[in-house]
Every structure is written in C-alpha cells, then in structure tokens.
C-alpha cells in the first residue's frame, strides 16, 4: 500500500474501533491522517474527507509486529520512517486521548517552528503519554505467551541497572532508543545520533560505548549501566557529587554521558594529569564548554581514589 509522503499515524486494533464524529473533529484539527486497521479491515481517516475503506493490509501488521497488543500505534514521518511505535492494552480511549492532546499542542505552538517536526513531536509526546496512561490502568498480561510466533520482532533480554528487562524489538532498534523509548530511561541523551558527541554514552559489560551505534539485537544478556543506575542507597555516585561540586555543566545535556564516561575512564586506569583526562574524555563533547570544570571534577575524584 502507498502511504502518503507526510506524517501519518497507523493504528492496529484487535477489534475494529468505532470512531465517532467527536474523534474525527479532533483528527481534522491535527492535520495528519490516521490509518486504522482491525483484523480483516482497514480505514483511512483523512483530515478533510469521510473515512475511506482501504482493505486489511496484513503486510503492515507483519512489518510493524502488530497483533499482540489490543492496540499498536505507529507514527511515521514524511519519509515513512518509524518515529514512534507503541503497544497499548486498550484501543479507542487511548487513541482519542492521544489525538486530542497532540491537536492541542499543535494549535498552541508558537509560529515559526517547522510545522512537520512540530506535528511529529506533538504526536509522539501525546501518543506516548496516552499509551502510558492506558498501560497503567490495565491488567498486567503475560506478554511472553502473546509473543510466541511474533513476526519480525526479536526478543532480547538485558540487565539494565541491575534489573532484567525483556524487550521485543525491531532489528534496527539501537540501544539509545531502547533505553529512552522502550524503557523510559531518558538519562542517556541523543545528541548527534551518529557516534560523534558522546551524549549517549552508557556502560555495557563494563565498557563505555556510544549507545546510538549499538543495535540492541546484538546485546542479548548484556549488562547496561545508565545514569539512572548510579545512585546507591539514596547516595549519589562520587562522580555525580563532584560534577555538582565543581559546577561541571551548564545546560546539562551532555552531563549523563560525561559522568558515565568519567567513571569508566577512572576504571580504565588513573589519568596522570589534566592532559590525560582531556584525551580520555575526548569522546564527550560539551556545547556549553564546561570543560575546565569537568576536568576539575574528574581530577578531584581521581585524586581521592
């Protein structure tokens, strides 16, 4: 099936949803079409026309690994890249809430921001929130049973900050997105998304790596430490305290990556001087230029260790 060259929403529902006029009004305000599928049927809700029948399209269910949850929503951008994919235990209310919230955000946004990105971001945020809410109020299900025979998706189990987490992922999911989108651990930051800035640095099996370039599919059984995992018994990690003490950040965006990288640096061996600290931290860029204080923080911890 040809999807449009602009942002759109796909919804795969276990039972065909009945979209009332109120819902269609919300969709009109949003300006992105919704392709809703149920077993054996498919309907597109455009911004301006009446719902149109488009047939069931089983290939889309396969591609997006839909069918296990009551609702799978997928947000595609203008190049039909998946920007967000979420499973929810309940269909109609969740979709309605998400579309309403996104519509509000789009209307309320200041002028001048690229409308397409804005729409995508608003939709993603609203969908995420609506799905989370729906999940919180739903009965827990045994998803292991539901997953058997799942097409396309891989099952990967990781130990994240000491907790075993089981994920069903597309092969192309990178660790950074899995942490942020699937596990809700937004401490690891997406700066460049191409290995150049270090904002996404986490520790995998004892070694610091750029999580934006690591496919989750490769990581079965891996132990991952993120910034969220550093607090022990309510106590900040000494490196976190040193960053606070030395004022080693301004906006803070690079900071989680800096801290994990710094901890790994000291585990790799003690830097002998500031030059070795700088070289050892070269993979972590700081747009605010907090470098002198970052070096001071690390020097402080290294000196005490």
């Amino acid at each position, binding site marked *: 099936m040809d999807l449009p060259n602009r942002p759109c929403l796909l919804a795969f529902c276990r039972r065909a949803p009945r979209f009332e006029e109120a819902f269609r009004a919300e969709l009109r305000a949003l300006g992105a079409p919704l392709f809703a599928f149920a077993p054996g049927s498919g309907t597109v809700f455009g911004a301006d026309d009446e719902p149109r029948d488009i047939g069931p399209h089983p290939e889309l269910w396969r591609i997006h690994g839909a069918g296990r949850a009551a609702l799978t929503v997928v947000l595609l951008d203008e190049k039909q890249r998946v920007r967000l994919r979420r499973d929810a235990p309940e269909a109609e209310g969740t979709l309605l809430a998400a579309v309403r919230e996104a519509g509000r955000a789009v209307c309320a946004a200041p002028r001048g921001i690229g409308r397409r990105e804005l729409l995508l971001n608003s939709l993603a945020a609203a969908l995420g929130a609506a799905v989370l809410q729906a999940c919180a109020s739903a009965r827990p299900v045994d998803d292991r049973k539901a997953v058997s025979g799942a097409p*396309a998706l891989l099952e990967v189990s990781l130990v994240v900050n000491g907790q075993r987490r089981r994920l069903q992922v*597309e092969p192309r999911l990178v660790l950074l997105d899995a942490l942020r989108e699937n596990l809700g651990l937004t401490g690891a930051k997406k700066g460049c998304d191409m290995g150049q800035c270090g904002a996404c640095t986490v520790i995998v099996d004892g070694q610091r790596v*750029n999580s934006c*370039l*690591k*496919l989750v599919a490769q990581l079965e059984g891996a132990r991952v430490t993120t910034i969220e995992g550093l607090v022990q018994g309510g106590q900040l990690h000494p490196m976190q305290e040193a960053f606070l003490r030395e004022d080693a950040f301004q906006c803070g965006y690079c900071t989680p990556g800096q801290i994990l990288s710094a901890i790994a640096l000291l585990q790799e061996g003690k830097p002998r001087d500031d030059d070795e600290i700088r*070289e050892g931290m070269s993979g972590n860029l700081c747009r605010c230029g907090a470098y002198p204080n970052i070096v001071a923080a690390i020097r402080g911890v290294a000196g005490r260790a």
Partner: protein
Amino acid sequence: MRLFTFQRAASVDEAIASGAGAAFLAGGTNLVDLMKIEVLNPERVLDVSRLDLAKIELREGALQIGALASNTAVAEHGDVRRAAPGLSEALLSGASPQLRNAATVGGNLLQRTRCAYYRDLGTRCNKREAGSGCDALDGWTRMHAILGVSDKCIAAHPSDMCVALYALDATVRVRGPAGEREIPIGELHLLPGDHPEREFSLQPAELITGVRVPIDALAARSRYVKVRDRQSYAFALASCAAAVQVEGGAVQAARFALGGVGTKPWRVPEAERSMQGRPATRETFARAAEIALRGATPRRDNAFKVELAKRTAVRGLMLSAGALS
C-alpha cells in the same frame, strides 16, 4: 534506517555459509552509522561479534590478532606496545575511547571513507552509487585525497590502524566458501580507478578472521604521527606510520606509510629504498618524503596537504630513528 533481517552467527563456518548477500556486523560503529543515514542498506545483517576471534598473541615471530579484538584491546596489549608500538599509537589516535571499545580490527580494516559527499544522499557519489558522478571533484576538498585519486573519486581512506599495518607489512587472514587465504594488506584495499564502488579485494561471504603482523627489530621501532584539525577525536589531515632502524648513524632499513592523503594508505617502496645506507638525518628523510609525494594531485582546498604530508613523514621518520624526542 531501513528494515532488515538479523541473524547471529554461532560459528565461523555458519557465518561463511550464510554470509553471501549479508553484511557482517562486528562493533557496528561504521556499519550502523552508515545504515542510519541509509548509505548502506543491507537486507540481511549477520552478527559475527560473538565469534571466538578476539585473541591477541605473539606467536611464530608475529603478532596474531583476531578480527574481533577490539581497537582498545589491541592498543593496550602489552605485546603490541612492545613489539609494534606504532600500531598501538595509531589505534589510540583514532576515534574516541567509547568508539575504540566497540570497534574491532575487522571492522576497522573495512571502514568506509568519511567523504562528506559519500555520506550525503543529496549529492552524487560514484562510490555510493556506481556511475552517478562525483560531487567532491569540484566541491569542498579539505579532507580529500591527493594520492591514488581518479577522475571518478578522490575520497580519502580514513583509517589510522591501517596506515600502521601497511608500514608493518601485515597480512590479512580471511576465510570464505573457497577456504582460507592470506592477503597482503596492500592488496586488501582497491584504488578507485574507474570503479570507486569496488573497495576491497574480498570475495562474497569472505570473513576476515585476523591479522598477522611480522615482528622484527624494525617493527619494535615503529611510531605513528597524526596531524588533524583539533588535538583529538578527528580524522587525519595527514599521518605517518614509520619504522627506521639505524646503525652507526646510517639507515639500515626503513618503511613508512602515509594516511589522510591517499585513497588508501600510501606506501612508496622507492622512497623507502632511497634512505638505505644514508645518514639518519632530516635531509635523508625529507628526500624520501619528496619521492613519496611525487605525482600528488591536489585540488583547491587540499593543496596544503602536499607540504603537510612531507613534514608529517619527516617527523614520523625522525621520531622512529630516535632523532627527535
């Protein structure tokens, strides 16, 4: 990133058996990057990262380095530091600690060019899309090659490790459906010529299993010098891996390779021979550098690389000869 199917190879044999038409995935720092920007779009990705090919050992007069040894592991290995310090220095000058932890020897050998046009789908590139044209030729060429170029491609080879391996006369071990073979490293990378899209001399489904670095007195003297736009975490404008053995003030043997300036790491045997028996002085090294840069074809933005490469070569040779501290 486009969708693909993912498989993990349980053994080298399995990797080779199902390797045709698939992309081998090791550290992913190059492949995943290029898949994200849709420059490489394999339909099948075969994870080889857990194969038992990460050993590093000094055996039979050579460093035997497994293809899956990480760049960090090789750089930090005691035998490597002692027997081939230039290799360790080259690795440590590349990328960042995070990237070196993930990057492997096999992946580094096959890493693709950083040519900005190759990485930009909005431009024409013969390497990315055979026969489409090359927008680098009259584009911004500061980072491009001046040696080994053709009228179809001027993309520079990005690897630091490979420059050292060229100077060290390494061989690459590969295994494929037709069995095992060794490739002298100079023959692994192809010049762009009329077909920049052909980059390596590997056959379909051939897996790199390791690298062999012969160890001798010369290798133990090897050094690496890298010049770049910032002090760390940048690709080379020019670099040099050099190994010089001096006796009684005269050069007994010398090898060197240049990085950042060629479409592949650049070695010129005639330049190396020119030093033989000569005094280990700046003049001798400068003459060798002069010969090495013969035939350079600079463009508007990278003309400075001719002089820079010569000076970098002289510095590398001086350092190895012990004439600099």
